[in-house]
């Protein structure tokens, strides 16, 4: 185990080289052979071999660091290596993880999307994460801001299900910094995985690599909101390469954050408007699925009138005043009430009606 960690932590290591090294067989013998100066795999520069030979003792340092942070290591062919990644031609050679890898034995659904999510998009991701967790599905996401964290939070609220987070940096590196609490809770109830050794900074190039692992771990991938060109689209491509079912949540055509998802729908992805759509895609026949209950206080007649005036897109206060014909003070009161009860949300001067 410590040799597998050492192999992953070698300088100038790449996912491809690591995978080939691990596939050679027992990591400890591979490690010894490298240290003894044997060029165990072809096509690697002499410069790299020199650097690697100078790393005697690295395996112990990495193993100690893993132990301190409560991180376990597995590798292709090693104990507990997630089955869905075994057949993956570009899967991670070594997987660092905190938590129980058995979570990945459940049905797995990825929920991904933009970091700059709309309030309504984040609310939907949260509800979907919650509903899936209630049905004992493992919600897989990337712990990023926006849609990712909303889905994770929704899953954590449910008493069941095991959340799975795939992060770009080391498992012990908190990124983004404000999501430390969620990361720890996911590790406790599910699992946090990464192919990067502990302490690795979440550098830009690691995110697309992370996305391929995320795609490989999902059975169904739901994109909640995404721009036409975004990190989520990389995950979508990776998922399609792996024959993972990709579903998208329809959004208003007037919102740029829905461009990507709407394009996916146009290209033939299945739409998701409810947890049932995902359950069907998983092959779990629809019917008596558990779902979260809307606990919000029902709006009064006046407030419902205002909610109806939204017509599904974000509105400014001014538009609502004109649409309802009410006085601005009255609209202010109604918006305040609806906001307090969670029916609408305010962002940058725009109001959005929340479906859940």
């Amino acid at each position, binding site marked *: 185990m410590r040799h597998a960690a050492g192999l992953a932590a070698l300088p100038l290591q790449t996912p491809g080289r690591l995978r080939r090294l691990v596939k050679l067989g027992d990591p400890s013998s591979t490690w010894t052979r490298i240290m003894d100066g044997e060029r165990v795999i072809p096509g690697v520069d002499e410069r790299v071999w020199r650097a690697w030979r100078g790393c005697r003792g690295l395996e112990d340092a990495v193993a100690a660091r893993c132990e301190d942070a409560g991180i376990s290591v597995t590798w292709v062919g090693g104990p507990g290596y997630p089955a869905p990644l075994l057949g993956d031609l570009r899967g991670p050679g070594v997987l660092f993880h905190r938590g129980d890898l058995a979570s990945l034995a459940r049905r797995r659904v990825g929920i991904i999307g933009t970091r*700059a999510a709309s309030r309504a998009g984040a609310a939907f991701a949260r509800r979907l994460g919650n509903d899936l967790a209630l049905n004992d599905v493992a919600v897989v996401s990337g712990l990023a801001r926006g849609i990712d964290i909303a889905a994770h939070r929704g899953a954590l609220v449910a008493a069941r299900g095991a959340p799975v987070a795939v992060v770009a940096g080391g498992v012990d590196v908190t990124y983004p910094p404000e999501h430390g609490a969620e990361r720890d809770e996911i590790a406790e109830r599910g699992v946090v995985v990464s192919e990067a050794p502990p302490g690795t900074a979440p550098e830009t190039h690691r995110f697309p690599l992370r996305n391929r692992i995320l795609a490989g771990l999902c059975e169904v991938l739901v994109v909640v909101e995404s721009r036409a060109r975004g990190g989520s689209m990389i995950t979508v491509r990776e998922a399609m390469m792996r024959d993972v079912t990709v579903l998208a949540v329809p959004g208003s055509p007037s919102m740029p954050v829905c461009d990507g998802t709407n394009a996916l729908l146009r290209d033939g992805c299945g739409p998701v408007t409810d947890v049932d759509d995902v359950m069907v895609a998983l092959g779990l026949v629809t019917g008596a699925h558990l779902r979260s209950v809307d606990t919000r206080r029902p709006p009064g007649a006046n407030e419902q009138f205002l909610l109806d005036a939204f017509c599904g897109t974000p509105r400014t206060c*001014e538009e609502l005043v004109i649409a309802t014909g009410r006085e601005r*003070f009255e609209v*202010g009161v109604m918006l*305040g009430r609806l906001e307090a009860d969670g029916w609408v949300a305010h962002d*940058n001067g725009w109001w959005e009606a929340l479906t859940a």
Partner: protein
Amino acid sequence: MYAAINSSTLHGVFGAPITVEVHIGHGLPGFAIVGQPDEACRESRDRVRAALLCAGIEWPNRRITVNLAGAAERRGGPTADLAIAVGVLVANGEVPLQATSGTAFLGELGLDGSLRPAAGAAPLAFSAEGERVVVPSASVEEARLGAGLRTVGAADLREVIAVLKGLEKWRDAPRGTVGTSSAVIPDLADVRGQPEAKFALEVAAAGFHHTLMVGPPGVGKSMLAVRLPGILPVLDERAAFEVSMVRSAAGLPPQSPAPVCPPFRAPHHTSSTVSVVGGGSPVRPGEVSLAHNGVLFLDEMGEFAPTLLEALRQPLEEGTVRIARARSAVELPARFLLVGASNPCPCANEQVTGCGCTPQMRHRYLRRFSGPLLDRFDVRMWLTRPRTEAVMSGERDEPTTVVAARVANARAVAVRRQGCPNALVPPGMIDEVAPVTGGARTVLEERLRRGDLTARGYHRVRRVARTVADLRGDDDVDEDHVVVAIGLRREMGRR
């Protein structure tokens, strides 16, 4: 041999009476000024000598000692020139002592003996002792704001000497309009749409609540701010007096007739901290004092130096700026309505759900305002682009006069109730002024419990709710008022 002449010296924006004592005695010829004169006053030795010579007076070649006696720490300033010159004349026996009794002299002398206007004529004249205050003719209008009919003007030293010798009479100062008249404030109806912002501005004006406007460029933040003085209640006599005093002390031309419209100051974001807060040597009032009883508008607030913004916290809290020096401390009035405007993000490009900036970029941009500073804004609003129809239509919204009438009404109600605008209600009085009962209490409790409101926010929201109730003509603060008040206090840069 000896003379004592009344004059006064400027201390921040206030005048302080001083007595200029002049003694001419035996000894080596010389001219010394003692009594902690400031730099400008030490220079007056040369100015006074030249001016007297030009006025045809023989300079006494004896030992002349001038003492500035008074309560202020640093005395003098250029306006002591005239008093020193008159003192020399009296002590030298050129002018009878009785002629100067009960008269205060203020004014800077030119080398040719002419009297020059100097900054601070109004507060100087106000504090000068005596039944007559002599000032340069160019400053008469300004000095009259402080000393009223006690003020007389003189064009040069020759004229002063002639009057003191009994050869002429003080000329009746011309009563006319000097200086600038108050600027014309544009009408609120010019701003199309933006009902939410206009309502927020109305609340801000009625309750004197500090306001922060965040929105993309071109939506009318500056347009709205410039129109705020128009809807603020007109200045009463006392407030107008204070405004005039500060203007005069800052060396700005007097407004004539006396200002009724609250001042509006909009320093550029590259302004230095001292120019905005006040300071220098001698201490001069800054923009915050010039905005006293009026509006201080900080456009592009995020671009101001962070130290400057933090320096605003004390005046915001206390209504004064205290500038302490090793020798003295000066207190400048600074009770202003702060209006800040900022773009929501660095790119400032608006689309329905924002621009290319990520929430983090927006967050970072708005984090330029520290928590404590943001906390002092009772009204924080997001502006959005007005609808095309509103921009294109010729339809005009409510004009300034209509809104101003509502504001004046609400302010009058508040002043009658507690003697001050709602934003300035002392914490001890808030329970009495704006009791929270019934539905209002439930709403506030829930927001507090959920962490949407801080303790300070809770108290500020109650004040805003009181203003909203006053504007609607309601005696009690009810649930609707509180809900609207909370809605006017939007979070900035957190998500």
